């Protein structure tokens, strides 16, 4: 047991505003620490090669692929996962918009898209569609065709700017309802 314990590092992590002490093998990625050691399974595992963006979290407010970062590297930094995106006041406007507009379809890529979009809107509260595309270019989605994701980011951005906006009302039958 002692030899096993000595292989682990005891690390203090700041996750979603909470300080957590966690012991894990030093070679573990942040993704594995989040999913396996902390049961924060909202961060998804997609390719473990940094290709799909599905595991993105925010570290000190910036998007990071958690499969390419060691858990140890997160020591002393502020990690935000999808579990920390809503506040006591409720869902983040991006979460509301994603849920409303069907930007979350199978839902597996959604947590990463949401966190990357959150960072975008903090830096640029009024992104145009090209800026949204660029910010989200590291994230793959196989269900939505991306369009509903753009629409959700645009809707959330407008609401966060305090504009009274509603989702587009054009129905699927090709006319205004």
């Amino acid at each position, binding site marked *: 047991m002692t030899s096993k314990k000595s292989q682990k590092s005891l690390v203090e992590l700041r996750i979603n505003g909470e300080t957590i002490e966690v012991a894990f*093998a030093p*070679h*573990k990625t942040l993704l*594995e620490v989040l*999913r*396996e050691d902390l*049961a*924060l*399974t*909202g*961060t*998804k*595992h*997609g*390719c*473990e*090669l940094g*290709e*799909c963006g*599905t595991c993105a979290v925010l570290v000190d407010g910036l998007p990071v692929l958690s499969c390419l970062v060691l858990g140890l590297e997160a020591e002393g930094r502020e990690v935000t*996962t*999808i579990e920390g*995106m*809503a506040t006591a006041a409720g*869902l983040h406007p*991006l*979460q*509301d918009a*994603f*849920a*409303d*507009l*069907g930007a*979350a*379809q*199978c*839902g*597996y*890529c*959604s*947590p990463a898209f*949401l966190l990357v979009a959150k960072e975008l809107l903090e830096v640029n509260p009024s992104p145009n569609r090209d800026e949204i*595309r660029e910010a*989200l*270019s590291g*994230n*793959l*989605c*196989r*269900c*939505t*065709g*991306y*369009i*509903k*994701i*753009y629409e959700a980011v645009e809707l959330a951005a407008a609401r966060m700017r305090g504009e009274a906006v509603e989702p587009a009302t054009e129905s*699927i*039958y*090709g006319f205004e309802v």
Partner: protein
Amino acid sequence: MNTIGKPISRVDGKLKVTGSARYSAEFDMPGLCYAVLVQSTIPAGRIAGMDDSLARKAAGVLAVLTPENAQRLPGAEKRLSLLQDNQVYYNGQPVAVVVAEKLEEAHHAASLIKIRYSVSAPKLDFVAGFPSSHPGNHNGEPGDMSWGDVDGALKDSDIKIDQVYTTPIHHHNPMEPHAAIAQWNGDELTVHESAQDISGHRAKLAKLFGVQESNVRLICLFVGGGFGCKGPLWSHVPLAAMAARQVNRPVKIVLERPQMFGPVGARPRTHQRLTVGATREGKLTAIRHEVHAHTSVIEDYLESSAFPTRVMYGCPNVSTIHRIVDLNLGTPTYTRAPGVATGTYALEVAMDELAYKLNMDPLQLRLLNYTENDPQTKLPFTGKHLRDCYTRAAERFGWSNRTREPRSMRDGSQLIGWGVATETYPANRRPASALVRFKPDGRVLVATGTHEIGNGIYTIMIQTAADALNVSPDLIDAQLGDTALPPAPITAGSMTVASVTPAIQTAAERVRTRLLQMAVADSGSPVHDASVDEVDFKDGLIFRKLSPNRSEKLGDFIARNGGQPIEGIAHVEPDETLKQKFASHSFGAVFAEVSVDPDLGPTRVRRVTAVYDVGKVLNEKTARSQFIGGIVWGIGLALHEDSHMDARTGRIVNENLADYHVPVNADIGEIDVSAIDIADTHLNPLGARGIGEIGITGTAAAVANAIYHATGKRIRDLPITPQKLIA
């Protein structure tokens, strides 16, 4: 209630945007340990020796399963690689499993296993396999079907097109990799699996392990995408169960991304020769659609690419032929719109070629050969409004502004092209069961063993129950993805809604009747002594129709009557005689605009307009999602997706998401989808035909035709990459 057809937001949206939706790998349990697959590195031969001594001694290792020691499973299908013998049929085949306390320990130990192979000459040359190819069938439908005299008609045709179109191997690559957690409790097996067919997988696992089906439980609350690859049971699931039995602990297995390129299905490669004859006026006189597609050497799977040719146009002489080529590759399987996606690509490009040869507008050619009846059986369609789709989509797209000549439209230095194609997908329905339960807390539960794969079925279930019971959707909860619930069919073939909603409606009707019968018999009820016809249930209240104020809350009624839930269960079979009376297909029209850089070759799909005839649309939001998602798959088929096989080793060389190109957001322009909302009640009471797959059909052809219009180059081998365009 009238929620059907409304753009209700997904009821599972909040779970998905907060990270609370639990996918199959995300269940923890005491003693959970990890399994890792060891895969073959040769395409054909046998294992001559395996040295696992180092792996067994490695830290944390609990077991190493090999063909030497694995549990014998009499009757295991050859298609599954369950370590029952030493044979190797494809590169990437599971040949051993390592189980360890920690995932990384299992990985490390797996790397220590040394395998010696005796290599045989593999069959990897697709075209060389044509002479020894063989016929097959798809879901029981024969691969070969002809009518009329094709040879004679082709001889007499004024105009002829004779071309070969090819499509490459595709791997589904849902964002969520395959995952399973298996746990034994005596002879009872529980499996959390990312699956599209929990009932089917339960039956297969029970048979494999020689236990009663009732001893096996499959659970899958959310599927992180599947597109067909999670339909069949693949080797890693029984292997996890074998490992769990051996170590007597729950075992988790999650495939790595490269493992998604081999042992869990693929869309097979196709080679399609289309010979089309027509009169000078453009009337089709003959079509021969001859398909070669590959399968593995261990199981037949037929990519039924010529099936859409049997239904698309009125033509008196048609021959559809399929031949299967056995290769030393993993067994292919259903991939979004199996057969139809690849087949409509070839047929609809051939139609475009014919239109150019006739000097005719490609949309006109399609209208000229429009068929009101199924051309093969002459049966009427349960509903077909394709003409409206063409007209409306052409109008929305602005098709009348197109100039016909290739290279005739430009935007600055970019060549612009517009293309059109027809879309189709068969409408199917299978038996399904459901339960609807009035709960003591006054809420309603609707449940069936179907799968939420992004299709929005949680939401559709609630809408169906809400309308059937006259209860607000807010009062209803949905449960699915568990074989402990009444069974539902595989989530595939665009048939979930058509199959499941009739069972929910019937179960709702039963529980409603039961409640009203109990209420009128209950001396404490305000509706006591009325006849069932005189009372009603709406929005959680039981009341007399003539004096609605004399009502009682559902929860109060149940509390007074013993506090037990009231339940209705229904099993509903489709009308099997329908097929003798009607053909049932969805149709659509899709238009695409591309720009092509004439110097560098890249194609951009600037906009796509599609209009669908899919019967009743049950939820505008989830429907729009499905249509757009399908179109994007069509763009991937046209321009990006291509699994490259190493010709010597049979290994897919681009087995990752950096080199296997799925459409990324920069690939997608504007997409405008709409639907013609005419219910098709022949198939099911709600009149819905299913929408998950039709979007990918036709789209690749519309893009390919637009590229021809832009460049004058007819690329007949997908994907249409920049290098092919500047070659």
